[in-house]
């Protein structure tokens, strides 16, 4: 039967982050800080979306807080959160030993490869809002999905040449696995003893309660519809002005606003596709402008071809 007791020596939540940062820094990654906007996944970070385009070498790792309003459970569900953390690694071009590097990172956080069953299970990735897709796996450890592993093939409708490898660790899931706890709120956050001990719940449970209430009950849908519209217009205007980076932020904003509207249940199934299509168009526009902006330099310095 499943054991509910904590595994002795399981790494605290924050140490997992610190260890992964150190590990990937040692592999030559730039350790970035989170993008300071609400987003549904680390893939939305410009370090992933825009940097996956073009010929330049790019290796980076970062934590990204993610918001999925519909996953809110008022702090009641042991597994689901509307706000959680992803650890993202992006390696361009994807190195030949990427799988080995990835497995090394799991060892670094205390998962012994002689004791655990690691598996790469087919899972192709597609983001309809980003117009992006790639092939890869979900990585299982003892039957639990601990990461998403993707080789990007297209972003914003454009071919990724060279190909970026993306790793996404769901930090809470991974920590629950490492620590052997069944409830996310029971996670040991800082490894402190006695009065210094802090759990994930101590820090985030109240936030889950309040934010769930906001997402499902209090978010002002009229304002959100307006926000969506404004972000869309602003994005278009900034693209016009040849500013793909600020334009892309408006795209991120519209995507999150759409997610909030979705959580409020005010977007019908029929309209849903249309909204997703609008966000995708913005994302595509940003990628297009980003490429346009860089094309000359890429061509000059890297013999790049569209």
């Amino acid at each position: 039967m499943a054991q509910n007791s904590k595994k002795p020596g399981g790494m605290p939540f924050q140490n997992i982050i610190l260890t992964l940062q150190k590990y990937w820094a040692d592999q030559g990654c730039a350790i970035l800080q989170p993008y300071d906007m609400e987003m549904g996944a680390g893939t939305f970070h410009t370090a992933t979306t825009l940097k996956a385009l073009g010929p330049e070498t790019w290796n980076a790792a970062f934590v990204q807080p993610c918001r999925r309003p519909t996953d809110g459970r008022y702090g009641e569900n042991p597994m689901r959160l509307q706000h959680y953390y992803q650890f993202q690694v992006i390696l361009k071009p994807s190195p030949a030993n990427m799988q080995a590097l990835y497995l090394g990172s799991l060892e670094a956080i205390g998962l012994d490869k002689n004791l655990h069953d690691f598996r790469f299970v087919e899972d192709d990735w597609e983001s309809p809002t980003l117009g992006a897709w790639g092939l890869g796996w979900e990585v299982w450890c003892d039957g639990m999905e601990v990461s998403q592993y993707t080789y990007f093939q297209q972003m914003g409708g454009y071919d990724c040449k060279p190909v970026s490898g993306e790793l996404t660790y769901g930090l809470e899931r991974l920590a629950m696995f490492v620590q052997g706890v069944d409830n996310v709120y029971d996670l040991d956050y800082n490894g402190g003893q006695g009065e210094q001990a802090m759990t994930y719940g101590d820090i985030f449970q109240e936030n889950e309660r309040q934010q769930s209430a906001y997402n499902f009950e209090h978010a002002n849908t009229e304002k959100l519809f307006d926000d969506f519209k404004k972000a869309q217009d602003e994005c278009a205007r900034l693209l016009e002005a040849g500013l793909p980076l600020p334009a892309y932020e408006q795209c991120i904003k519209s995507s999150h606003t759409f997610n909030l509207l979705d959580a409020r249940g005010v977007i019908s199934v029929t309209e849903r596709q249309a909204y997703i299509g609008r966000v995708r168009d913005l994302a595509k526009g940003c990628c297009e402008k980003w490429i346009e902006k860089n094309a000359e330099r890429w061509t000059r310095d890297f013999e790049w071809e569209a």
Partner: protein
Amino acid sequence: MAELLIELFSEEIPARMQKKASDDLKSMITKALKDAGLTFDAADAYATPRRLALVVTGVPTATPDISEERRGPSTSAPEKALEGFMRGAGVTWDQLEEREEKKGTFFYAKIEKPGRAATDVIAEAVEATIRNFPWPKSQRWGSSLLKWVRPLHSILAVFGGETVAFDVDGFKAGNTTRGHRFMGADEFAVTDFADYKAKLADHKVMLDPADRAALIEAECKKLSAGKGVEWIEDRGLLAEVAGLVEWPVPLIGGFDAAFMEVPEEVLILTMKKDQKYFVTRDPKTGKLAPFFITVSNIKASDGGAIVAAGNERVLTARLADAKFFWEQDLKRKLDDNLPALSDIVFHKELGMVSDRVERMKKLSRYLADFIPGCDADEAERAAELAKADLVSNMVNEFASLQGIMGRYYAKAQGESDAVADAIRDHYAPAGPSDECPSAPVSVAVALAEKLDTLVGFFGIDQKPTGSKDPFALRRSALGVIRLITENDLKFVLRNIFEFAAKLHKFDANTFSSIRDDLVVFFHDRMVVQFKDQGMRHDYVNACMTIYMSGTSSLESDLARLKKRVTALSDFLQTDDGINLLAGYKRAINIVDKEEKKDQVDYDGAVNAALLDLVEEKTLADALAAAKADATAALETEDFEKAMAALSTLRAPIDAFFDKVIVNADEAKVRQNRLALLSEIRAAVNTVADFGLIEG
């Protein structure tokens, strides 16, 4: 003769693609060998998650030398012609020879092509295979331009113990491979297939998927027996799991019996589909047992305790989710879900799911009249609730449980068994091997669901074309055919199409065209289906004509159509059958010919007074008797008897043609004789259109 060994080593290949990939590797390489003139004794291909391997035995080390003589232009032909010939044959002037023939002197070229080294052929074959491999989806990686299912790491090509030297986009072929990701050495060299297979085993890779599956099966049985339960065999899952591991180590785990209150289908789906676990049952009750078997890819140093415990924890969390959904769903009635169906689009031109439910209700009630023992109120109620589980938590999570969950929820709110079962069954049959519903209420709703789909998509001009059938309309039609024939129902299909079409908001003018298009579509589907059952297409067509044009339920029911085709095909094997067909053709040929010539139909009544010769009269009498007997037999659906009755006409027909001149001088007599023959045609056609029978 030498042995060829090829291995393409990559990152994890999706399990579902491995079998076909190993088959493709084998067929592509062996075809290339054959095309180049290389023979071989045998070829076997294998797949693991990380490699495709092929061994071909008895391959010659070179292709045979080719010596060929080719005749060129005449010596008097213009120089251009000679140049062209030399270019085409690939020869030079000194390789030409002049020969005198009857028609003049001609150039001859002797072409000697020495055999090519097999290694050259192999190098080309492997490269072409890699570049053109038919993966369902492939990708680039890093800076490579090559595409493979996942990043390719190495190519092994050994022929007769030696490495075949070539490279593909920088991938140099070699003689080394790697073992298990965690339990094997990084790299080692091999000399031949036996060495390769043995060394892989040493490095914890079982190359042959069949060996892996056999080991998993044996272990699963042993582990289950150890817990006093029975392993539930699942070939599809076995093949999949064998494709997820290079070194299978099955482990058994358990889950809390408290989860057993959740419907079995949910538990099984969670374990099999999400977690790829095998499930077990209690041998006494036949019910699901609280144990599962996971197949790990490692012989863990603690004997697998941590792996098993980890899997148990994952499963517990998933089952807890499922139990939560189940309990949440039970708090609501299915009826409470109905309003939400008006938010789900069925198809943008065919309305919401709620609109579809309304149509299915009416259609089910209408169909109930034609289904013996079907209560119309129950049929309508079942149709009303049939789609209500689509908005339940459980179906949201596990779409494939649609219908199955609806049945549970219906029972929980006190619906009758007939209604609950119909909710579950109304999607069936989903294919030719799927079970076909037989309970009356289930049949009504299952038919209504498919007819509404067919009529709807025909109404918005989304008929299947060629290989494109995005709405699976052929499957729906097959479902309707099976529901009708297997339950022996009596319908006039065209009337039902029309009824169903009128429930849609189509232009009234389109009803008859939808109906007629569907009649033709069903005609084709039935021919296909009968053909699949081994019936001759012309026999099917001969009976179908009657079926399609029929307006009474007597002619127009599918179940009887099938009986009719069967009877016809049996009958045409007998002497009577052969006689009838011959007599019919003889009579009909002349009528057809004269009708064409005169541009009239000779199907008016026969005037007995104008019958003059004995043979004429005899035929008319025999026809009257045969017709009466055949009609009586048809009324009792005795097709054999009807056909036998008509076969008595053979002798009178023969006698008639011996003695009677059809094209008599007197117009009235001629017309009457043609009418008599035409009547034979009409009589026979009540059984089947013999004119459509070939040979």
